[in-house]
């Protein structure tokens, strides 16, 4: 339009740019916000898919509070999450320090290292399923080469969650590496130069200089990793389906069973709401930790 040129800043700025957001906002309302509202509504109803919904108030929540299988699934989720967060944080930070150095073929090797986080999780889960096989799997063979006895991996109650976490660690260590690598790129070189002159060891330099400076990035990676580990689904569903028995049934798998095996829509929706509350609560705790980390 050939109207008079307007100054780029002014009171009319917000409303104009608002129209750019409208289509995206409408789509978000339809596919993201509507399901949230609908889920809360359903969680207050007794509803089998296909039947009619009956208002039951908070009864679904009250039943969950005393449901043994549900409470165990919360414990499984936390156990899995702790392993699938701590180990990638340690390994990913270490990998970031390694890839921060310059060495021949760095670009190529870095690309190989990030492949797991981009690969299709179902396909990766399938490969690990074959590797975990107690009799024919390659993992037990590799263990036997270094003199360790065979493991039952995902086929025994006490090893199933660590085994599944191992796959999750394999998948998502690169993600932590990338975030921490971004932090390392911003670290100035002067402190290292003076520390070297003072005769500091490499170990001391890591703990006294590098670690405090990249700690905020490690915490961010930790927050995202925690959210994703709590939500983990594909790896567990494909490899163990929550088994043996319900030994590796996490909240997300319990939710899936309620919704798509038993069609208890009301109960499943209540699980979603509780699940969401746990994720938000943990995220807030970690965000608080991040504020603290800045004061280091």
């Amino acid at each position: 339009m050939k109207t008079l040129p307007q100054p780029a800043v002014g009171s009319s700025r917000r409303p104009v740019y608002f129209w750019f957001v409208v289509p995206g906002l409408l789509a978000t309302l339809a596919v993201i916000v509507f399901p949230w509202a609908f889920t809360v509504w359903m969680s207050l109803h007794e509803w089998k898919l296909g039947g009619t919904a009956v208002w039951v108030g908070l009864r679904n929540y009250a039943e969950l509070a005393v449901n043994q299988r549900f409470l165990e699934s919360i414990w499984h989720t936390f156990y899995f999450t702790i392993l699938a967060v701590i180990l990638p944080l340690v390994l990913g930070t270490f990998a970031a320090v390694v890839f921060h150095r310059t060495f021949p073929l760095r670009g190529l090797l870095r690309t190989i290292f990030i492949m797991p986080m981009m690969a299709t999780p179902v396909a990766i889960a399938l490969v690990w399923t074959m590797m975990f096989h107690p009799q024919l799997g390659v993992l037990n063979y590799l263990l036997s080469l270094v003199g360790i006895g065979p493991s039952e991996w995902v086929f025994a109650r006490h090893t199933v969650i660590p085994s599944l976490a191992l796959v999750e660690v394999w998948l998502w260590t690169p993600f932590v590496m990338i975030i921490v690598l971004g932090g390392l790129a911003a670290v100035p070189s002067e402190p290292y130069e003076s520390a070297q002159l003072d005769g500091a060891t490499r170990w001391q330099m890591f703990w006294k200089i590098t670690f405090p400076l990249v700690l905020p990035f490690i915490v961010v990676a930790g927050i995202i990793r925690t959210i994703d580990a709590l939500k983990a689904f594909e790896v567990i569903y494909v490899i163990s389906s929550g088994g043996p028995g319900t030994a590796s049934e996490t909240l997300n798998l319990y939710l899936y069973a309620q919704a798509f095996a038993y069609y208890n829509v009301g109960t499943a929706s209540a699980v979603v709401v509780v699940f969401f509350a746990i994720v938000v609560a943990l995220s807030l705790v970690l965000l608080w930790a991040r504020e603290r980390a800045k004061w280091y």
Partner: protein
Amino acid sequence: MTPASSPRSAGYWRLRRWIDNLAFAAVLVVLLAPVLFVFFWVVSLSLKFDIDNTAYPPIFVPPTPTLDNFRRLFADTPFALYFWNSLLVSGGATLAALLLGVPAGYGIAKSKAHGLAVLMLISRMTPGLSYLIPLFTLFQILGLLGTLWPIAITHLVITLPIVVYVMIGYFETLPPELEEAARIDGCSVWQAFRYVALPLARPGIVVGAILSFIYSWNNFVFGAVFAGRTTRTMPVAVYNMLTFEQFAWGPLAAAAIVVMLPVLFLTVLIQREIVGGLTAGGVKGA
């Protein structure tokens, strides 16, 4: 390390550096070995006959490499159809996310109004499964079940936040002077976006599109719930193969490779941006 002032011979330092490099190389090998081994093993399985795949001790290098597993995969199962389904779903969801998300990212970056961005951040905290029951009901009412539409539409839950996040990050780094100059020359806000900002943002759009395509392609849950026999996406098809043919390791490995190959190829294309952190906000959707 010892203080730089201490007197050591040149030979000592040469040896020291040599040992240092060797130790560093060893660390690299330890870091990369698990990654390389898993990929090596799936390739190895896919190139062997099933007799060799279930042999113990395992056979690592195929004695007589064969492409028979891949041939069987496409001959015995409608894998080409599933590939096409995945292409339609992920392509469609990515295209729609670009149409909706690029202007939205621009609007958010310019107006500094982050309401929508916060919504999407919360959506990232919600388990993907939780969208399925409401949307399932909705699609039932709309009569869309049994087609590819429900799958493609639900994939917006993944692709839209990725595109919006990458684009906010990208538009915020563009210098505002160029659009301001265009505005002073008489361009409308829309024209300044269409003819100035959009062409400049092309690299960001490419990265956002590739990332959202990858994570849509990789998604399993939405397809698992919505897909019928003819509307399966690749990850769903692979999962079904696993449940029905537990010990056909060769074809299973071949299927895993066919699923992963496109995304691994795309990863190589944008690896610099992934590592550079440009995409940090966008990585992994619902």
